[in-house]
């Protein structure tokens, strides 16, 4: 029996019960649906994507879709969370590999730009399509941006009283908002190839309130 629910690599197995844990198959289907949504949205935009598009890309049935998700919006949320988890993982890893905070910031920003450049469809999904995918996603989007604040708050540690006096409660929010704005606008305009060239400016902008412009510029230009 040819069941469309089974991944191609299992198609060779004899029909009937495979003894595969239900959870494995379910997880696999869910992942395929998420990947299917990402492909469908890349092709059609969020508004133009239908559940039929998604299930076709995922090679699962409509019924299977509804076993995992109640709606297109819900499937999108899962896709969004998946992309953001991956992005977060890479940024975190790059940031934590450095001993000094300024270099850690540079590494984190570089990792983000690298990912968005390498995966322009996912970049678009998470920063453009996300805005039209319903209120749940927008909340996640806003929270993701705010989630960057701690990386910069860490820069306050050990600063002189003078430097700290130049910071305000909203400094990190403003920095994060500014950086995301630069990145987002280029993704909106489909100019992801320009993202990596933003690195020096972004680093200088982010570090200046803590290090002063001269030192910030130096870190920004370092290889």
């Amino acid at each position: 029996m040819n069941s469309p629910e089974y991944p191609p690599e299992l198609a060779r197995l004899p029909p009937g019960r495979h003894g595969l844990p239900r959870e494995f198959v379910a997880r696999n289907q869910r992942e395929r649906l998420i990947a299917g949504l990402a492909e469908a949205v890349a092709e059609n935009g969020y508004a133009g994507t239908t559940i039929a598009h998604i299930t076709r890309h995922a090679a699962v049935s409509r019924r299977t879709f509804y076993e995992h998700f109640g709606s297109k919006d819900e499937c999108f949320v899962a896709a969004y969370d998946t992309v953001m988890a991956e992005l977060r993982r890479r940024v975190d890893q790059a940031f934590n590999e450095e001993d000094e905070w300024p270099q850690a910031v540079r590494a984190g920003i570089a990792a983000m730009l690298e990912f968005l450049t390498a995966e322009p469809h996912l970049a678009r999904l998470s920063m453009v399509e996300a805005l039209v995918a319903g209120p749940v996603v927008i909340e996640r989007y806003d929270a993701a941006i705010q989630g960057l604040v701690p990386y910069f708050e860490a820069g306050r540690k050990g600063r002189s009283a003078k430097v700290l006096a130049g910071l305000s409660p909203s400094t990190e929010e403003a920095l994060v908002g500014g950086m995301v704005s630069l990145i987002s606008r280029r993704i909106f305009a489909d100019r992801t190839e320009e993202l990596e060239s933003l690195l020096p400016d972004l680093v200088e902008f982010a570090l200046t309130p803590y290090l002063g412009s001269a030192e910030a510029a130096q870190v920004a230009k370092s290889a």
Partner: protein
Amino acid sequence: MRSRFPVKVPARFNLIEKMVCLSLVPKRYPVPGPTRSPDLGTLPFVAPKSTTRPLPGQHQLSREFIAQHQRARIVNALALEVSEKGYRAVTVADIVKRAGIARNTFYENFGSKEECFLAAQQFAMSAALSRVVEAAGEIDEWPLRVEAGLAAFLRYVAEEPALARTCMVDALAAAPSSVRFYEESLQAFVSLFRLGRDVSPHGQELPETLEEALIGGVFWILYQRLVAAEPRGIEELLPELVEFALTPYLGAEAARAVADEGGAASATAASNE
């Protein structure tokens, strides 16, 4: 790359940019004492018969204006609906109900929700910018000009949160025409901030994307307050936003001095009225 702000504004600037920049070209800095430009009774670049002339006492007129003018009324209703439900969920039925008009009336004024939303954006941005120009246009010193302009902008956002939201929150979630308009609006503010390079001791070394980032940062802070529906806290943000915006050009101390002085300056202005 140093950009020298020209006295003659290039034709390629859109209407918003012209409005913002023409009246804000610095005469000289620093200025020995406050000098008033000749009182022309209107902004110098706007011809007396122009329809883009800002209305006097605009924020007081706006309620009457809305009551009397249908198009503005529809736009206002859309802004309220969108701020409550989000752009996607709002229907023309919602808008006409909120505005208290017939469906036909909506379609006499606008072809679609998208068109209506764009009109709301344009209305809001033009209203905000005329306040900015009105507040900042007569001030020679660039830092004080930024301070006054920001104060006026924040006041608009606090007084008209639904309309401000159309420009700053919902625009990116709406149609492509709205995204394009959002881009144009940002550009206008970028031009205003770029003037700071001429008065900064190290204007030439500043990163090229600085203005974009500063505006993005200010917008993000305001966006969050709007989304959380806390418009009353917005005007209190003025000193920290002024400091944030001016520091890259003038250094932290000078920026802070302007931000701290701001309270005194607006108190004086208020007592002179």
